[in-house]
């Protein structure tokens, strides 16, 4: 980084230096010298080494309900490599048909049946990665956390309406308020069924990461995000640990984030829509990303 940043700095000034060289007449009285100094950056957060695996859950619990009484309609297994700044998000369709202790069921019932531990167990069964940490939020917590950003930018692969917030999402980049972002996260009438919805959740995570990094230097911004996370997340982390975690997320390079949604075959069980997850693909994704939080083999879909 040291040498690279010096080169980058010099490269940034090179056009100016060339321009100066061109405009200085040949008959100038004496050689001119332009002095540039080197600036080198260093950053670190004490939040463990290696790869951290976080299971991020979004509950559809209604106001007044415990988060664990709601279905987890957002399920993302996120790997973060603190050494390299890489991160990966593996999306699990909420309708994935899995075996729970009481029989076959959608995976989004796992928290209701056995709490976050069971959800973590089911994800580990599917991907073969055991989460180190579980974070769960609901509608209010989600909006409160996004509220600290004001607006968030997300990409969409297609255009579709969000009638509840009177908005039509465009294909490409969209700027959403927290309320619009919640509608974006919950929208089900999508061409890609449950898989597209999970991909939208990944877009929201990526947009939040970009905002976090872009505004980390703003006065009180990180503290506002951490305070919203303390109030909006259900987790075993202490407030102090959450504060560290939020800061640590700024070490993740948004350009080094890869994402994939586990594929599967839509079907019907007991009259309800389900997805039979592509278990071989899930296992391959887990094996690929486990050690370094990278998907070097791509999504391996199909």
């Amino acid at each position: 980084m040291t040498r690279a940043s010096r080169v980058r700095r010099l490269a940034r000034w090179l056009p100016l230096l060339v321009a100066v060289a061109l405009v200085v007449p040949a008959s100038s009285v004496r050689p001119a010298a332009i002095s540039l100094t080197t600036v080198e950056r260093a950053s670190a957060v004490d939040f463990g080494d290696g790869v951290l695996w976080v299971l991020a859950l979004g509950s559809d619990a209604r106001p007044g309900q415990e988060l664990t009484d709601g279905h987890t309609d957002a399920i993302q297994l996120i790997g973060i490599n603190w050494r390299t700044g890489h991160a990966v998000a593996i999306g699990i369709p909420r309708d994935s048909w899995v075996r729970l202790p009481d029989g076959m069921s959608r995976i989004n019932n796992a928290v209701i049946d056995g709490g976050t531990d069971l959800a973590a167990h089911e994800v580990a069964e599917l991907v073969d990665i055991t989460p180190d940490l579980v974070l769960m939020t609901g509608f209010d917590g989600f909006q409160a956390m996004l509220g600290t950003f004001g607006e968030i930018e997300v990409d969409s692969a297609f255009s579709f309406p969000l009638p509840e917030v009177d908005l039509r999402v465009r294909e490409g980049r969209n700027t959403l308020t927290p309320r619009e972002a919640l509608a974006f996260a919950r929208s089900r009438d999508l061409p890609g069924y449950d898989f597209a919805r999970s991909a939208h959740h990944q877009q929201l995570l990526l947009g939040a990461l970009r905002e976090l990094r872009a505004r980390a230097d703003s006065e009180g911004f990180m503290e506002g995000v951490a305070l919203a996370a303390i109030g909006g997340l259900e987790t075993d982390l202490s407030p102090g640990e959450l504060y560290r975690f939020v800061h640590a997320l700024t070490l993740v390079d948004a350009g080094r984030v890869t994402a994939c949604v586990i594929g599967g075959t839509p079907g019907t069980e007991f009259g309800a829509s389900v997805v039979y997850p592509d278990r071989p693909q899930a296992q391959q994704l887990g094996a690929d990303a486990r050690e370094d939080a990278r998907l070097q083999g791509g999504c391996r879909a199909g």
Partner: protein
Amino acid sequence: MGGMGHPRRRVTHGAAGVALVAGVLAGCSPDEVPGEQQTPTPRSVALRVESVSGADHLDEEDRTALETEIGDVLSHYVVRGFLGDFPRREFVASFESFTSGAARHAARDIEQLTAARVQDATAVRATRLDADLSFLVDGQDVIGATAAVRFAFEATMEDGKPRPLSLRGRFLLEEGAGEWSIFGYDVALDDGATLETGVAP
């Protein structure tokens, strides 16, 4: 983030600590006789700490105590990392107030976090030491803080020429067991080393 702010409050903190230590280390040795003719050595400025966000619900006494405690941590880091005897080779002591994990990272980044780049200087003094504090307060519990710093130093090199250094960025702090420690950082050091590009006549 409007709710996080409060009117800015400026406290010149640790003036005695930093200025005195810097004066002793950069100015004269204990063996020197007071009153003896010497070239006056400019003293380091004092650390200025300002609470800029998050402390509006704390009473004055608590806020001042927090500024003092964090000011002490930053002062210790500055004195050990940038001031003191020169030339010298030892800068690791500046990380004593870091958490163990942060100190490990800092040892790797020692050239960006200390005056190690000018270790052959004959003296270094601080010309600007500003720290803006943003607190994370949950109810009445003060959990952590970000110190946005703008530090500037002037090293006197072996040839007698001055060389400016500056450190800008953020130090991340947490409170535990009554003590504050640094658990992270994101800083940029300008070490004053010049890349000279000649423009031929």
